[in-house]
């Protein structure tokens, strides 16, 4: 039977794979040297690398953090109503944005046609919080409570002015789709620690307005082998479907089935040599292990009431931002390397004073609780928490400015993020914008800088982690740095 299958496969050998095989055969020697070239940095110094599950084997530099949880606030949260206190805007409320500040910067089509660009101050009060004295708005009371554990970056800037390219840029280092996501790069570089769970897990809030799209390619593997892509847990009571075996079907049966399937796949692999087959095999194996590990993780019944109270009432409803934060903590506790949480709905072009409080209310308490919870469990030492969106918002109102209402347009020139935990200096505010909150005046941080920093904290030199695709080597930060 095996022979028949092989014959069948051989008959179907495509032109493409023939060419691939032929060239691969010729280039095998060269390839061999390429592969050893990739790990040369780890081998040449004569040290024994112990965990070769990632391409790097071990971090280039001592890692300051082992895990990352990225709380992505998708849509571009307004910095002016959250962390960026600009009293001048309140003073100049309603006056036109001076040209000397704007310096002819391009605006989106949404506000470029406006006859006036009236500056608008925050309609929410600010207060200094913690020993560090960080200015935080009344919309973020809980985040204010952990201000001393956070490091605010006020001077983030990006090159993209619209959601999808900016999101893609933030996640992959390029504005066009097709590159691997941050979590995929890390997974590819360092591999997974806990083999029973995927190294890169994605959680999307179900309690957020879905105003702007969120594509699965944002956590995709791009040109990397597919086993490095983010695994999305569904936002519901059953985060991973079909994990339970049907009645009368035992784990041994499943094992037997998978073993047989593996044999078939192996036969394919031998004939075609397509590395994607290997990835498929490893994904089946991962799914099998997840049958045991995931139910244990997602079963929240062991969590005491005070934990739910800490994350807020939403945390009892699966799939909400708060529940996802709690789930993230449970995943991080099990050494999952990269957890990415998305919460949409931060795109307040209009009716900002009415809409933004809802966004903050849905996320503020749980974000802060996550930091606190990681800290008390001693995990914050080597876990990096990142909070932020894809760009900032304008200091002028989009649409009509009334006494109670205004909106803000996209603003890539500056925005605020915060980070906490592994390797981050707590209580620090990095970078500064001008009094108008329009331009950066001190320590600008480009998206690539942020990505390089994140990799650095994980122990990766961003210039060393690369992948050969489409005829050249690619990095997460591409040619920057």
């Amino acid at each position, binding site marked *: 039977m095996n022979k028949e299958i092989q014959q069948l496969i051989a008959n179907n050998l495509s032109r493409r794979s023939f060419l691939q095989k032929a060239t691969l055969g010729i280039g095998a020697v060269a390839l061999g040297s390429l592969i050893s070239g990739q790990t040369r*940095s*780890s081998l040449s*110094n004569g*040290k*024994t*690398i*112990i*965990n070769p599950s990632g391409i*790097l*084997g*071990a*971090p*280039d*530099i*001592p*890692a300051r953090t082992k895990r990352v949880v990225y709380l992505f606030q998708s849509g571009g949260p307004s910095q002016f109503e959250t962390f960026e206190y600009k009293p001048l805007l309140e003073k100049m409320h309603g006056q036109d944005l001076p040209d000397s500040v704007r310096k002819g910067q391009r605006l989106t089509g949404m506000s470029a046609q406006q006859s006036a660009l009236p500056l608008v101050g925050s309609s929410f009060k600010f207060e200094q919080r913690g020993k560090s004295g960080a200015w935080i708005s009344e919309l973020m009371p809980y985040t204010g409570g952990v201000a001393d554990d956070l490091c605010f970056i006020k001077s983030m800037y990006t090159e993209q002015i619209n959601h999808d390219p900016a999101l893609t840029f933030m996640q992959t280092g390029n504005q066009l789709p097709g590159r691997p996501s941050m979590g995929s790069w890390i997974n590819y570089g360092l591999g997974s*620690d*806990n*083999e*029973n769970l995927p190294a890169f897990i994605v959680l999307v809030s179900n309690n957020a307005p879905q105003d702007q799209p969120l594509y699965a390619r944002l956590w995709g593997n791009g040109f990397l082998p597919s086993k490095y892509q983010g695994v999305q847990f569904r936002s519901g009571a059953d985060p991973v479907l079909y994990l339970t075996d049907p009645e009368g079907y035992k784990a041994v049966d499943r094992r037997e089935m998978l073993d047989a399937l593996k044999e078939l796949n192996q036969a394919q692999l031998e004939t075609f040599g397509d590395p994607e087959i290997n990835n498929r095999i490893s994904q089946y194996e991962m799914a099998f292990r997840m049958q045991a590990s995931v139910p244990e993780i997602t079963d929240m019944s062991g969590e005491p009431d005070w934990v739910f109270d800490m994350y807020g009432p939403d945390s009892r409803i699966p799939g909400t931002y708060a529940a996802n934060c709690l789930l993230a903590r449970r995943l991080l*506790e*099990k*050494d999952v390397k990269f957890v990415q949480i998305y919460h949409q709905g931060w795109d307040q072009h209009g009716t900002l004073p009415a809409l933004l409080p809802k966004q903050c209310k849905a996320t503020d308490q749980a974000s802060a609780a996550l930091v606190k919870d990681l*800290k*008390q*469990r*001693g995990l914050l*030492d080597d876990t990096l928490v990142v909070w932020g969106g894809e760009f900032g918002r304008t200091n002028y109102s989009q649409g009509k400015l009334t006494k109670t209402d205004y909106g803000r347009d996209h603003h890539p020139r500056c925005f605020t993020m915060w980070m906490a935990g592994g390797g981050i200096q707590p209580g620090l505010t990095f970078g500064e914008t001008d009094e108008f909150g329009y331009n950066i005046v001190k320590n600008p941080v480009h998206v690539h800088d942020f990505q390089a920093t994140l990799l650095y904290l994980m*122990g990766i030199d961003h210039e060393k982690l690369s992948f050969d695709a489409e005829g050249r080597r690619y990095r997460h930060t591409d040619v920057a740095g």
Partner: protein
Amino acid sequence: MHTDWSLFFGRFHPLVVHIPIGIILFAALLNVIETYKKSPLLSAAINIALIASFVSAALAVISGLLISSGGGYNNDTLFWHKWIGISVAVLIFIVWLIRRNKKADVHFLKMSLSSWLLYASIILISIGGHLGGNMTHGEGYLTRYMPGFLKSIFSSKAKPQHQKIIPPLDSVVVFTDIIQPIFNAKCVSCHNPDKLKGELDLTSIETIMKGGKSGNTIVAGDLDKSELFHRITLSPESSKYMPADNRPALTPIEIGFIKRWIENGADYKKNITTLETDGKTKYLIASYLGIDAENNLEIKLPDVPPADSVVIRQLKEMKIVVRSVTSKSNLIDVSFVMVQKASASQISSIIEKLSAIKQQLYRLDVNNCNLTSEEIKIISGFNRLNKLEIQKNNLADESIEPLSALQQLTILNAGQNNLTDKSIATFKKISSLKKINLWQTQVTEQGSKDLQSQLKGIDIDR
């Protein structure tokens, strides 16, 4: 840019030099054949090969002399390479002469003189060629990827690698640690006591102060009058631009350092702390010298021999996460995250197993593993530990007492255990401790204050 004909032809040296090598080797081969099978045709062919190799060798010598005039090579190596090359050319010519005059071709030890000389020239070519290779590709080019067993044979030759010694930022002397190394890297290949281009020698303080032909090489505090600064900031197209001959230019940072040094009086003794430097300059200097700017953010790892790979494999089979701390160290990070549900006997056998790699064990995560005082006793023998996580193990004060033996521990996560203020005495003894987690223990405010009074600056999470 002006054309430097001598360098233009000189650069063909690496190309030309291979022509005589090939022909001489072939001539030698024919010569070997000739000893077994005499033939007038063969003999004529050898003579042709010899004269051809002489002509090409002469060309190689000329181009070699031209390229060496550009400077920038190790003088010792160059000396031997040059004279070996010339002697090969001469030798080949002599061989040719002798072969033409049969009477001169006397026999020693059953071999003709011409054969002796020809084979000797091949040995010379091997040595000279190797020296040439060292000059173009760098020393150790051949041996870098040599398999270990061969390396051990050649190990006596292996030179200890030069390691840059990095001084602490505060003790950096501006001239000695920053300026002189820049000169050494970019200028002294021409401006040294041997070459003295422009009568300038930049290898020592005295000669720098003396200056070159114009005398005003460096004028303290005056950039405009300092010829050196003027030359390195000219447009690269200018014939006066330095470094000349397309040698690697000074980087903007290096130029910046020289600028500040001259502006500040071109002092040769001044320490960096006496200079008025802003944060950015300090950072630049630090990163230029390879010192982490926020001094000591650099994590220094102890050097240890590699761990026993058999033990590592066994641990991995037992579902223990084992990781290298970095690719440049043999230290190991171990986590029990996948075996938290394992039986007490399993856990304790794994911990016993860890003793075999205790030299390498740098971080250990045994959270939530139902540890008992027995296991803690074993763990307290892992004296290399830098970080230990024993959260959620129901440990009591008495059980953790042995941990005071861990004198290199900086982070201890001991939360969710039955610990009270009695444990403070244990923690106090761990003098290296920088951070401790005591969440959900019965340690009181008073207790943590007590600990802080002993271990200054310790970070306590409660």
